[in-house]
């Protein structure tokens, strides 16, 4: 792989990154003029799209890269669960859930001597 050197990296990013994402944005614009907001087809597309992102979220939590690779799974899951509990107790305020999850993770990492 010559990923690191020169123009090839930019071509790689342009094709596998820009083209791969903007295709869907362009199709979204064209479909947005046709797809009805209350149609069953849009409902299905919405469900598939959400499940895709949920799978990405689960992978980031279960199989993280970098520093968190060495952190225990129970800590990461515990942080998400406590964050979720705080989120619902605070009437679904994202900031509260996010702050609780991050604070739990930070405290756990500190306790484990990271």
């Amino acid at each position: 792989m010559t990923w690191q050197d020169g123009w090839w990296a930019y071509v790689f990013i342009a094709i596998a990154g820009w083209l791969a994402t903007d295709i869907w944005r362009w199709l979204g614009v064209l479909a947005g003029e046709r797809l009805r907001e209350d149609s069953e087809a849009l409902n299905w597309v919405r469900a598939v799209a959400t499940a895709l992102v949920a799978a990405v979220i689960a992978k980031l939590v279960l199989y993280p890269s970098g520093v968190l690779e060495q952190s225990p799974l129970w800590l990461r899951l515990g942080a998400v669960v406590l964050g979720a509990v705080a989120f619902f107790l605070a009437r679904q305020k994202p900031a509260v859930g996010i702050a609780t999850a991050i604070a739990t993770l930070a405290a756990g990492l500190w306790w484990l001597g990271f």
Partner: protein
Amino acid sequence: MERVKDERSALAWFLTGARGIFSLPAIILMLSFVGFCSLTAQAGIPSEQVVFMTGIVWALPAKVILVSSVLSGASLATAFLAVTLSSVRLMPMVAALVPELRTPKTPTWLLLVLSHFIAITAWVFAMERVQQVPRAHRVTFFAGFGITLVATNMVLVAIVYRLVADFPPIIAGCLFFLTPVYFLASIWNSARHRVVYLALAIGLVAGPLFYWLLPEFDILLAGVGGGTLAWFVERSWRLRREAGA
């Protein structure tokens, strides 16, 4: 004179959109980009390429998948496929936002250009606030927010990339963790349809399950399989309730 006044008010709406950079979702996104810097710095991707990626790909999950593909030594075709399959969600997001933004006079090319600035944060922000903007100025308002958000994050990435390598491990770990936690909270919070909650729950379980069964296609299978299941279950509930009512 009439025209000058009109242009000035368009500028004012552009700036109103640009001020969205100080909103909570924009600030969380910027923190997530700091986390992304730490991911790419640890992966050894040069900072110019990370800045380029930020501007040209924009969607953060797509970039995370692009970087992961590169790290696992994937070919161009494999990386393209992985990013394409994971970015399908941009299509319904854009499709849902476009009817809110456009007027009968809005040219399609302008929407095609502006669609580049749509990723989850800009989408959540726009869906929430565009209702309070007069329809004639919605496209300008969104352009102000979208362009400012992308440009700011490109500058942020260029600066922060050089600093993150020195971050203590706890900070680096927390910054990485912001991304999944933020997506989780913001998808739940911005969901307007019951099927989204169900798809989110099923996807969280289906992702690891398919990673265990068929790691090559885990995200695609979890998305199509889990999403279809969520859609089917929600539809059955809905039909049964309608039949009962």
